[in-house]
Structures are given as C-alpha cells and as structure tokens.
C-alpha cells in the first residue's frame, strides 16, 4: 500500500450530503475483475450522458470536470460520504482518478475501512469546517489544502486551519503503508491456538467436502 504522510493539492467541492457508493461508481462497472482502470467511470451517471454504457459523452456540467478544478486530488463533500454498498470499487475509482484525500463531516464505516486499505485518507472535520472549505474552494481560484497525517492537521496557508483525529493504529498503518495481512500473520500462533479450540463443525466439514468433490 502507498504510504500517506503529507499531501498538498487542489480541492474540489462536491456539495452534497449522503453521497452513496452507487453514485461514486455505478454498478455497470463492477463486472471488471481488475483493481485498476475504474477512475474514468468515477461518478459516471453524474458526468456522462447516454445510456450508462461506457460510450457516454462527458457533459462537462459536473464539478469534477470544471477546468478550474482540473488535477484536483482532495475531494470535500457533505456528511455520510460513501454510504450504501460495500463496493471497494468506489475507493479504487477515487484513487485511480487521482484523489489522495476525502474530507467530510462523516463517513460510512465500510467506505472508511476500504479507504484505509488503499492509502486514501478520509479526514473528518466538523460541518462548519467542511462548509468553510467548500466555500473557499468555490471562491478562491486554484484553492489548495495541505493535509498532514503526522501532525493531524489541515491547512490552506491563507487562514483556514483545522486538526482532526484518527485512531492510532490506522494512522500508523497509513503512515507506513503497512500490509495488514502481513501484520495479522504475525499472530499465526494465536490463530492456530484459537482454531485448535474451535474446529470447523463436523456437519459442515462432511457435507462441504461432498460439494467440493462433485
């Protein structure tokens, strides 16, 4: 995983609450079996006209496509961002599009977990702070923020400053880009001991084996 320490980038405002993962990446693109290439389908139904197939044309109306936000790497949105479906494709699409940070006043649990596994930082600020960033990003040309995970600080260098919190372990993993499967496997002895005490129930074992055999 790509480590996250500090990032400075252009901010794009998505001034909506409850943005669900069906909007972030519509279901017609979930059939791909790779982890890559989802960026061009990000917010597809909001960005492209046509029948929802890959061949749609960009309307240019959506905020992400406004020239002033070109190259944005920080997305700021309303509360409950990433609610709904557990599809990690939503995070892959955001990351593939070039986002490194999403700022909102709250995130859905599964989305926040998925982000963590992909080096996409989710920053929780208050409703007022989020509204302030949205306002600034609409008013100030080339509006940029610096997000510092070591210091747990957000700063635009022109009067906006905020601190945020994150649980220590998640922060540690992100800062160091740790593969958490590797971390879990360090507990092999404990896992094996647990399994010795809790074997697969016998009914399950016999019958599943017949299914495997057929």
């Amino acid at each position, binding site marked *: 995983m790509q480590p996250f320490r500090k990032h400075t980038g252009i901010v794009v405002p998505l001034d909506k609450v409850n943005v669900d993962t069906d*909007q972030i990446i519509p279901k017609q693109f979930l059939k791909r079996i790779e982890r890559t290439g989802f960026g061009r389908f990000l917010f597809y139904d909001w960005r492209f006209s046509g029948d929802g197939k890959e061949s749609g044309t960009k309307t240019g109306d959506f905020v992400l496509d406004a020239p002033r936000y070109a190259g944005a790497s920080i997305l700021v949105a309303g509360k409950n961002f990433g609610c*709904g479906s557990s599809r990690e494709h939503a995070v892959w699409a955001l990351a593939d599009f070039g986002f490194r940070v999403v700022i909102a006043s709250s995130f859905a649990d599964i989305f926040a977990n998925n982000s963590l596994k992909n080096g996409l930082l989710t920053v929780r600020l208050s409703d007022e702070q989020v509204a302030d960033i949205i306002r600034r990003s609409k008013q100030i040309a080339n509006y940029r923020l610096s997000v510092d995970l070591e210091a747990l600080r957000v700063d635009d260098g022109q009067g906006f400053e905020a601190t945020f919190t994150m649980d220590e372990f998640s922060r540690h993993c992100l800062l160091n880009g740790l593969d958490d499967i590797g*971390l879990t496997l360090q507990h092999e002895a404990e*896992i094996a001991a647990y399994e010795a005490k809790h074997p697969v*129930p016998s009914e*399950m074992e016999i019958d599943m084996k017949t299914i495997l055999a057929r």
Partner: protein
Amino acid sequence: MDRQWAKLESMPRTLFEKIWDAHVVAAPTGQSALLYIDLHLVHEVTSPQAFDGLRANGRRVRQPLRTVATVDHNIPTTPRGLPIADAIAAKQIEALQNNCREFGVPLFDMDSAEQGIVHVIGPELGITLPGMTIVCGDSHTSTHGAFGSLAFGIGTSEVEHVLATQCLPQNKPKTMQILVRGNLAEGVTAKDLALGIIGRIGTDGATGYVIEYAGDAVRALSMEGRMTLCNMSIEAGARAGLIAPDETTFAYVDGRRFAPKGKDWEEALASWRTLASDAGAQFDRVIQIDAAALAPFVTWGTNPGMVVAVNARVPELTSFAQEGDRRAAEQALAYMGLEPGIPIENIAVDRVFIGSCTNSRIEDLRSAARVAKGQHVSPKVRAMVVPGSQAIKHAAEKEGLHRIFLDAGFEWRESGCSMCLGMNPDILQPGERCASTSNRNFEGRQGRGGRTHLVSPMMAAAAAIAGHFTDIRNWQFR
C-alpha cells in the same frame, strides 16, 4: 489485579459483547483487536481482486470449509439453460468458478439446487448459526444478525484478508439498542418497521454502532421478518444489526442441512441459550419505538431515510430544518419527478419488483401472493417476482404461489439479486417508476434514471394491481 479481572468478567454484557469477546484471537496493545471469522460468504462481484491478491502473494485460503461461495449479483433471472449474454458478467462468473476450484472453496454454482442470494442461502442451508461471526463482501451481510450472530459487510481488501487469515483486525463498534414496544398492526410488516426506524434516525443514525433489536414487536417476528429487519440495519449506517436467538430461531435452524445434529445440536442449543444481553447491560445509545404507531411506509426520495406513511403526502420542502437536508430533498424530488405535497397514494407506478435479500423469502412471497390472489396486474404495470433462491422457488411452486402470480400477470423468474441492483439485464428504463421490495432507492440503483420506491411485499403487490400506491390496510383480499 485478579479481583479486578473477576469483576470485569462478571459485568453484565450485551449480546454483541459476548460474541465479540468469544472471537478475539489477539488484542495487541495499540492495535485493533484481531477477530476470528467463523463464516465467510463469497460472491462473484467483490471477490476476483481478492483471489488475485492471494495469488500475487503466494497465499492460500486458510479455511476453505469456513468459506462458501455462490453466484447471485450479476446472473440473469431467465431460465438457467440459456447462455449468459453479457460477456463481462460471464467472465466474472467464470473467474469465481476458477478461483473456487483453485483454492478449494465450496461453490453453489448457477445450475445448483442450492444457488441463491448469498444472504438467503446462508440461513436457508443452516450455514448461518447463532453466535457466529460472519462476513461477506456485501453490505447486507447484516441480514444474518437475525440469528444472533455478528455479521457485517466488508470490502474486497478485507475479503482477501479473511481468505488469507480467517481473521479481521477490527475496532470495537459502539452499541445501540432499538427497543420496539407493542405490536405491529395488521398490514404493517418488518419492512415497515425497518423503514420507520431509518426514517426516524436517518441513514447515518447508527454509523459506528452495532444495533441490537429488542422488544415485543421484534420477538413476535418470524425469522423471515427478523432477517428483513436486520438486513436494513446498514441503511441506517449500522455496522451490524442483531437479535438475540430464541425458540423461533432454534425452530428455524433445527434440521437444516448444515446445522448441528444429534448430540452436537443439544450442545449447540445449550450454548445458544446464553446468547442474550444480560440484565443491566449498558448500551451506548437506546432508542424506543412504538410499534403501534407505525404504518405501511413508502419512500419518496433517493435514500431509505426519505420515507413517509402510505396515507401521508410527499413532504413540503419547508418541513426540513437543515439547509443541507432541504437541498437534498429538493434534488431527490427533482430526480424522482415528484411535487412536494402530493398524496403518496396518487403516485402511479410502471414497474413492480418483488425480490432481493430484503424480501424474497417464502413468507414474503406468500404475503404478496395473498394480495395478488384472484386479481390482475394493472395493464400499465410490468411486475416481476424473483425468489431469493432456488429452494424458495421450488417451495413456492409446490405451494402453487407461482400460479397465483402468473395468473395475476406477474413474471415468475429464476433466483438472484436481479433488479435490486440491476447488474443483470433486469433494469428500469430512464424515468420508469418502480415499487420495489429491495433496500436501496439510490439514484440509478435499479437502472440509470429509474425511480425506486421502497415498500413491503404486500404493498408492492397491491401497487402492481392498483397501478398506484395504495394502503394495504384497506385491501379487499379475495
């Protein structure tokens, strides 16, 4: 020190805490707890990249017999003999078949008698049991909480994690009790209870929490109803939703194919009987609901929290106190093609979908059939019934439910997720309005530009026949 420990041990615990404590494999300081996963359900859409990850790192599936796969999300609901027209969907299904073969994971494939929506077949086969930890790369894994198990949805990276280690690092969520007092009125179902709760607390009302549903109205629900209720927990933002197992639960599980038998059953039963929140156990938050005050609900907007009683009206924009919510409501109404203030019963529908892991079980189909019996679907409506699994389809056919539906002009399809998310050919056309028994009315969920209203199976069947929403409490059953 010892005495303090003993005190902790005897502290009253919630059901969630008991399951959690029993599954902690390691609790390294400064890290998340490592939770053992008893059952991992897998489907075609969220697993291919996880298996790729295993291959890339030379890892195997640690516990293939605690892993169960099926195909449900993108398969067509047309007769099973036909080839899959969508080449990319076919490739995804093939990937799952190959992965299961390579890693030794049991798969209930397209043509198997056990195939069905992953959250329907787990309980139906007796794979889902009380007290378990269950995960799946699907947010509606919360369904299995109906059995008093801790069940939650995960992303693909976590799917890979569980495949490789049978464990997940987890931060302990907070607990919320939703206490539903009194009884649900005739015509008011578990679906309406779920929608009523989400309407009250909002789609992020339970974010960060595990919900335990309790109270007389919950105890009175069948297992099907409990599954519907727990299924919708995620729509309130909850990590999971669960209900303490009781005689209703045990009667449902008893004799199912993978459930314990004989002496194992007796032992299991004894341990399951301890699965209840202790008297005096503390929840971080408690919400009380008066069951008698609930009505059949219909969503009017683009998330499940945008909901009113069927005999009410689409809300006025002035009724929203918060600016963000008012704007969201305005956008939702524009998308839904609705005016504020119109009576819900005046809204005409084009399509009806009875199915999904929320409402496709035998009891759901029975209740819809009761409404449809001797009636006919409005000529302006196309209505579809999609059983949750092959087993349900066959059970329904044995009871003659399919005849009732077919005679009334409903389509009777093969099992799968179908129009719940429209990854297969079952989708709404732009602008089409649908009464749906599924769980999400997000923009475009059932097809780009499609307009979804969430309802119970009875309300969906009634809308199909009337051609518009109608209060099931006034229905003339034939």
